[in-house]
């Protein structure tokens, strides 16, 4: 454990304490039932910390066992984070069936495209395959969260503060991970220790944000909106779009106006 340094050890301990506190808070305030995927994600990160603590303590930070356990657990954590993001999307857009249906397809497509882009961008570097895959997943996660918030903004859907904080934490951590993985790829050998410390510090910050978000019971979804009849959409929306097209044409004509008189 001496390889890690005092700061990393201290951060590790702080992170573990906060993870436990958050998990306890989620269960005690009954938020775990509303946010099972997020709770599972926090549990997975805590389990990963414990597992790595044992493995690194036993075999050392640079051992093959630590490397294997580290990456295997990391992909499980990433998987559970993806589920937490999906849960977040469902909480925000789920009540609005039509928009949710549309959003799901767009988010999935965007996430997959971004993931493949990241993988393709570094395909020639097989020794960095794991880091690249992680980076692709993180970039995909961040993209989906940003798209989610843009969707909510576009459709005037107010996102409750706890969900905003949850989204903010997940997105910032993903962005940080992308930057971190990118730098790690470039200066792999000499940067690993700093990468770990920075990553833990960022995660600690996110944990604080999420603890604030779930410091009390998050109210359940507001009354389900009464959806309109299908005919309303089919009747009005094409009309609106047609009018908007005409309006757009009118604006084009503004360019063909006469010059003002002196």
């Amino acid at each position: 454990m001496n390889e890690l340094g005092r700061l990393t050890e201290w951060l590790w301990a702080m992170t573990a304490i906060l993870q436990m506190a958050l998990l306890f808070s989620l269960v005690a305030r009954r938020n775990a039932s509303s946010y099972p995927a997020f709770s599972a994600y926090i549990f997975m990160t805590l389990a990963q910390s414990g597992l790595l603590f044992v493995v690194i303590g036993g075999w050392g930070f640079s051992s093959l066992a630590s490397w294997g356990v580290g990456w295997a657990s990391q992909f499980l954590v990433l998987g559970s984070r993806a589920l937490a993001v999906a849960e977040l999307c469902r909480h925000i857009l789920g009540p609005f069936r039509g928009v949710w249906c549309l959003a799901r397809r767009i988010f999935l497509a965007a996430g997959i495209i971004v993931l493949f882009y990241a993988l393709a961008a570094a395909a020639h570097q097989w020794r960095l395959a794991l880091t690249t895959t992680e980076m692709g997943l993180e970039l995909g996660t961040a993209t989906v969260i940003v798209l989610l918030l843009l969707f909510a903004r576009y459709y005037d859907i107010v996102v409750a503060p706890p969900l905003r904080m949850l989204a903010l934490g997940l997105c910032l951590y993903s962005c940080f991970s992308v930057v971190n993985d990118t730098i790690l790829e470039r200066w792999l050998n000499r940067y690993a220790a700093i990468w770990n410390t920075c990553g833990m510090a960022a995660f600690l910050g996110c944990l604080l944000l999420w603890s604030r978000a779930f410091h009390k019971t998050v109210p359940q979804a507001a009354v389900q909106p009464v959806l309109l009849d299908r005919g309303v959409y089919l009747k009005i929306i094409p009309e609106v779009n047609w009018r908007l097209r005409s309006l757009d044409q009118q604006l084009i004509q503004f360019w063909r106006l006469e010059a003002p008189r002196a």
Partner: protein
Amino acid sequence: MSTMLILLFVAVVALLALLIWAFLPRRDRGDKAFLGPKDGPARQHATYFGAIRQAMSEEDFDFLAARAPVRMVRRAHKERQRIAVLYLTELRGDFERLLRLARVISVLSPEVAVSHEFERLRLSMRFSWRYRIVLLGLHAGLLFLPQLSGLNQIVSQLAFRMEAAMKELGERAAIAAELATTLNRRGLDVC
């Protein structure tokens, strides 16, 4: 490798910028009412269009140009431009309200069509861009006014036809109540 690094950094910076933008409050949120009786805001500016057209009439300007000193003519021209800018701004307000109505209908619909949604997004973005250019042109004194009448007509017709369509469906009252509740909450709340 370095190109990839740059692209990834650009992607992250763009994502962060979009994240910040997504958290900013919408400017048109305060403008709540868009569905109402005949004299509701969506048609308010159409009511004043006659007076505005009179103020902008070519004949009046020609009359003034023939008789008044150059200074006064210039001042009158500036005033006309100012009115045009104000009017255009208000028309955009009407346009935004109608767009919002369309968005609320989409949100409250059990099914939405991808093509319609994307088309509206594309059109609203294009309108927003062109509106800014037209406004810039008006500020710079490059554009003149008559075509505003066409713009106004379209917005007014849109308001009228949508209202008529909702009446026809016999659900206007229920929808208006739902929308009013929604808007009073400054948007659509989820927890």
